[in-house]
């Protein structure tokens, strides 16, 4: 009887121990992931590869890259990752990250036609990213006829145009001149 009781207590401690240890490992791990996610989000990380130099340089000349009165800067991922849900954000981050590493290591970097890629900017610039900073765009434009007319169809959801389909150079000041080499 007492033997059984001792066994029970032992296994209870074991379970508690597993939970505590798991919690600690989990915390450490998620801390690591959070730091990792954070460290791989800005221009410093993204420009580690030479390939991204033209994008970075044109970005520094742009309002989104700090060339504005307050020096505020949007990070690369603010535009280039979706902001609708954390899961989607992380998934897309992992997907693009792996793709970039693969192409950077094994791909033929010379053959990439960046001008051609720009035509499909809507695939890698996310409206949810734009809207997570420009939260007041809808209200702000309704009092300005010119800006309102241009955004009316968008906010009324009567067009499937994405932000970058109209705002072509946004984020990168005359990018075309930089990628020409």
């Amino acid at each position, binding site marked *: 009887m007492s033997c059984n009781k001792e066994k029970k207590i032992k296994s209870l401690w074991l379970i508690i121990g597993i939970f505590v240890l798991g919690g600690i490992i989990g915390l450490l791990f998620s801390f690591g992931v959070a730091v990792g996610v954070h460290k791989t989000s800005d221009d410093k990380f993204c420009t580690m590869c030479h390939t991204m130099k033209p994008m970075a340089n044109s970005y520094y000349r742009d309002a989104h890259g700090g060339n504005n009165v307050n020096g505020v800067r949007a990070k690369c991922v603010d535009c280039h990752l979706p902001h609708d849900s954390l899961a989607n954000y992380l998934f897309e981050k992992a997907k693009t990250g792996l793709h970039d590493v693969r192409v950077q290591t094994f791909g033929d970097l010379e053959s990439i036609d960046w001008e051609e890629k720009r*035509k499909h900017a809507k695939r890698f610039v996310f409206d949810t990213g734009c809207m997570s900073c420009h939260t007041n765009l809808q209200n702000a434009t309704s009092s*300005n*006829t*010119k800006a309102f*007319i*241009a955004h009316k*169809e*968008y906010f009324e959801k*009567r*067009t499937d*145009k994405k932000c970058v389909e*109209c705002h*072509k*150079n946004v984020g990168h000041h*005359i*990018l*075309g*001149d930089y990628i020409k080499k």
Partner: protein
Amino acid sequence: MLKRMLFIFLSFGLLSFAANVGDITNVKTLKVDRGLTETGKSCVECHAKITPGHINDWKESRHGHVGVSCIDCHGVKKDNPMAAQNCEGIKGTDIFVSSLVSPKTCERCHPNEVKEFQQSGHARAAIQIQAKEGMKSLMEYFEGRNHPDLKHSPEATGCMQCHGSIIKLGKDKRPTAETWPNYGIGNVYPDGGVGNCKSCHSGHKFSIEEARKPAACASCHLGPDHPDIEIYNNSMHGHIFNSEGSKWKYDSAPDAWEPGDYRAPTCATCHMSGIGNLKTTHNVSKRLKWNVWMPISKTREGGYETAVKDFENGKITKGNALAGNPDGSAAARTEMEQVCVSCHTTTHTKNFFNMADKHVELYNTYATDAKKMIDELTKKGLMHKDKWSDKAFKIWYHLWHHEGRRMRQGALMGAPDYAHWHGVFEVQQDIRELKIIYEKRIKSGKIEE
């Protein structure tokens, strides 16, 4: 004395008339401050002196009302393929402009209009010319005599003026003479934009009234192969328009232009306008049951036009000849009937289309027989190598491309003279002639001299 006074009065009157004729002279001192940007203002004020015609149109436009100015449409980023600083006022600044304005600019404010347009047959107008070898050889080799210097004139002065062109830029970033100017509806711009809003709305004024009048369509839809304006004039609709159309109201808001504003439809009413429950569309193919321009008419089951999408993916294609309503030809006809019943009874409408459809089907029987003869002659090597000097080919071409289109379009738009005398009457004459040639060649086994 009296004579002298009269003369003075007359000259004074003439002078003051001359001083006020048109608005063009008035805009030369234009000063505007209507929420335009500094650049926008300076464009307007300077161009009022240099190109008063442009500014005059703009100041009468809706764009002028809402503060959309020159730079909003003509301004481009430096890395845009059309970007230039050909204007003295901006040389050396960081402002770049383009004389060409592509639909990619228009769609910033009018995304649906551009999208609908690009889903319509109009969108393939220029692209398909480049995709069809036969068309290119007709323009450059046969009509242009393959002349090293002159061969592009037939397309530049003719075809492209309606169809549009794939616009090319010279080294100075100005469009080449071979590809521009034109008002062609399917223009392809160096930035990849396809379409041309000013084909119907005309440059700088972009008038909704203008586009709603038959004249907007008539500059292209006329002549032996698709006499649509003549067909309209021959119809009762055109008759009413021609007698009282000048008094109608053309500037109601989109979707709100209804019977009452007009007493008979114009081209726009049937093919585009919102009427009753029907929504406005810039897809002119959407209410069409038949394709009536091809050699043999089929119903339009091809969904949307795909030329623009193909072009974006780097392909020059013939487009989708059976583009129409995404829900098929029956849905297209239902939409068109919705237009008709705004003024007519259902019986009237159904009966009209019943017989018009039969006329299209009757045409198809002629075309099928004619095609069979041509195919057989081709197979047996009894057709001239240069088809444009082959009598049989010429008859076949006129049968479908001229007479046959008139027969079908005349029927579907209520024009008796075109459905009959310019249409089926000539088609039945054609097929007799073709048959004589066909039998002669089959019998003798050679092409007659």
